[in-house]
């Protein structure tokens, strides 16, 4: 199988569009496509046709498999109960007979005989010498069958990542850092008891308490918003930030305003609006006007155009917004970094696993490279830095080869521009002017401007 892909990769190299094509092949390989399909995709790609995304039918197969595993477990549970009953009942009966003899029953012979027959019942009909417990044996067989089904669900073993020496090195060198990251994670999730207990048990030094105090207070205030539906403390905090959290302040004020309307206190709601909304007049006039219209519908909010404003999740969203603002103002991450890294890892593992398996044949450790061999498709909320890949050369921009904007607004790396400016057709004197690769506008190297993302 791997040799087949080697062939595709060779093909890609010949075609001279290495990085992108390599990626097409690698991605196909990772999602477990058949060679034919990858080849199809590759040809489409080389021909400049759009390549269809990988087949998603395999994921439905997986859910079906999971459903059948759940059914297996149900069956197994029934089977297990009955197998043990079948074994336990005769033992109890045999015990009963033996107890009778012990208590001096006159017919000890009959009791012995009966006890023996109960015991033999467990052994099946095979009698004394070749003992077997058919019910339990069958149960063990059924467990193995279930095991085979589980086996089938997981096609790609984790091993290829696992026992490399660099992984051990990682464990030895970084135990302390992982420990500290975990304590920060617990603090960040409001699990202060766990943070303290873990620091003590794992003997990792706990970072300063100032961090923790901030989070403690933040979570207390967030709970006030979400559970008690009180915004006062959060609003005060937002005001103190001098305009940096204006959006939060407005959202909280609006929550309070809507609360008063909902509690059928129009006078107080109106007073509240007069006291606090003018402050936002310059930036949020339209929204305020819309809010004030609510008094027309005060008696039938549920069927009014304003019903959506009273969605149950609004308190949670307010609390989340508050937490995000506090984190931003304090310069700490908005989401626990361990959480983000682990989620990214779950996306990356299947991709890296495949590559690591291939690399291992060449006796290279994936973690010893300067760069991963393939792109990991992370979701947008896990992108924290701009990365510019030149659409012409497919290379990542660097300081030596920075991205340049042409007058038409298209961006290409400098090395590619220089190549374009030199001209491609032999014998023709390069004029230095060239057509933008993405639109009909002509440009020259001197027109291009550096961009910093």
């Amino acid at each position, binding site marked *: 199988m791997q040799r087949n892909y080697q062939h595709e990769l060779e093909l890609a190299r010949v075609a001279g569009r290495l990085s992108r094509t390599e990626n097409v092949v690698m991605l196909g390989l990772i999602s477990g496509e058949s060679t034919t399909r990858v080849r199809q995709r590759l040809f489409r790609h080389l021909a400049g046709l759009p390549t269809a995304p990988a087949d998603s039918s395999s994921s439905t197969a997986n859910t079906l498999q999971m459903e059948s595993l759940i059914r297996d477990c149900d069956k197994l549970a029934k089977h297990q109960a009955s197998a043990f009953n079948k074994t336990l009942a005769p033992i109890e009966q045999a015990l009963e007979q033996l107890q009778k003899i012990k208590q001096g029953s006159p017919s000890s012979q009959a009791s012995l005989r009966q006890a023996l027959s109960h015991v033999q019942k467990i052994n099946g009909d095979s009698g004394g010498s070749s003992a077997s417990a058919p019910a*339990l044996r069958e149960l063990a067989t059924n467990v193995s069958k279930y095991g085979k089904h589980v086996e089938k669900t997981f096609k790609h073993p984790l091993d290829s990542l696992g026992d490399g020496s660099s992984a051990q090195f990682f464990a030895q060198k970084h135990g302390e850092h992982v420990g500290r990251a975990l304590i920060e994670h617990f603090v960040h999730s409001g699990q202060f008891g766990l943070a303290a207990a873990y620091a003590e048990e794992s003997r990792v030094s706990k970072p300063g308490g100032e961090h923790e105090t901030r989070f403690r207070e933040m979570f207390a205030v967030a709970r006030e918003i979400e559970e008690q539906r009180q915004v006062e403390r959060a609003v005060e905090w937002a005001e103190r930030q001098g305009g940096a959290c204006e959006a939060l302040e407005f959202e909280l004020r609006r929550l309070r305003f809507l609360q008063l309307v909902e509690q059928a206190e129009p006078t107080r709601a109106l007073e509240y609006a007069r006291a606090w909304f003018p402050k936002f007049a310059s930036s949020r006039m339209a929204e305020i006007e819309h809010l004030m219209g609510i008094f027309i519908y005060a008696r039938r909010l549920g069927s009014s155009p304003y019903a959506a404003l009273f969605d149950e999740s609004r308190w949670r969203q307010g609390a989340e917004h508050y937490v995000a603002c506090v984190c931003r103002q304090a310069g700490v991450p908005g989401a626990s970094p361990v959480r983000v890294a682990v989620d990214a890892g779950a996306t990356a593992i299947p991709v890296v696993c495949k590559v690591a398996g291939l690399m291992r044949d060449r006796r290279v450790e994936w973690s010893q490279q300067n760069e991963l061999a393939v792109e990991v498709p992370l979701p947008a909320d896990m992108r924290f830095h701009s990365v510019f890949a030149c659409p012409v050369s497919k290379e990542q921009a660097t300081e030596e080869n920075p991205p340049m904007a042409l007058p038409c607004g298209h961006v290409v790396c400098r090395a590619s521009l220089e190549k374009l400016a030199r001209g491609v057709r032999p014998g023709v004197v390069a004029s230095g002017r060239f057509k933008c690769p993405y639109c009909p506008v002509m440009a020259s190297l001197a027109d291009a401007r550096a961009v910093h993302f």
Partner: protein
Amino acid sequence: MDKVNMEHMLAIEEPFLKVPLEQLKRSARQIQKLVEREMAAVSSELSEALKNQYRLAPEELQKTVDGLIERLQVLKRKLEDANQEEAQLIQRSKRRAIELQELKGFETTAHPLFQQWCRRRLDRVLVDYMLRNGNMRTAQMLVEESQLEHFADTSLFSLVMAIEAELKESHSCRGALEWCAENRSALRKIQSSLEFELRLQEFIEMARAHNRAGAIAYAKKHMVSWSDTQLPRIERAMTLLAFPPTTLCPPYRAMFDQARWQTLSDSFRTVIFQLYNLPAQPLLHLLLQTGLSALKTPACVSEEPSEHNRNCPVCQTETLGKLARDLPLSHHVNSNLVCRITGEKMDEDNPPMRLPNGYVYSQSALSDMAAKLDGKIKCQRTGQVFKLSEATKLFIS
């Protein structure tokens, strides 16, 4: 919106389903063997008693009966325990399959329930990490706080910890040898020599105590059966008897070394993890390594602090950043642009805008700023002020 890829999500879940399964397999086989053995013994004793009952004195019959009752009661108790344990393991397997099945319901990664699911997954991974490191108390706390009773393999790790402590601290092979006896066929299947190593250690301890006769008898009883594969080592062990524990002769000094207990404990762990399909490394390490690598960009490792993003795990220079230092950078063949002001993705819907000084921000960030600053925009990185109309739209293909 990003779709949830079920197959990818399952890639790390193999041990999750397999640990209770392997436990179940072991228990089912062991209990079957036990019942077979006991029933054969009981039934032959019963037949014997039946045959001889007229020749037996009443006291003798009574003694036999008492013995049988005792035996059956022990068996019954064991069966009841195993019954309960197996029922629990099946329940646990089912709960875990249901947890994985839930992934089907999430259309996109933004689904709030998917976020909760990921949160639970992280807690599972953390419990695994703590159990492996022997932080049993914290692990238990996390299990209780996050209601992960069915998702934590506490009993397995308690067993591992107990046997390891016995090896490392009390220098005793008893528990480990018992475990080997219970799992002999599985060990044979993976061609593990763990049992031999343990036997060898007991032999060494006898040699250390100058109990030569005992050592020879022990070797005859427990080590000869390994002669097919381990003959040279048995020979060397016998030669050990000629050396005092204080010897400086390298191979024998190594055998007498107390560090051998640590090695034994490590190989025990390797073997038991292998039998239960647990990866040698904690899942947390694998996830952090691959995750950090996938997140790592040249900006994260820049000397310039302004290049860092407070939300980026790799930019946490004191903790995760240190872990990421030796890991590969992420690979990109497609551009991914993130606005420095809002942190939002820049694409056709929110295009990147270039200021005259070359710095780029998202359109939404610039228009928000212009609304507040009277049509002016200020470059976050250089402090220069421009008019919004001076910004030009860029096209990224």
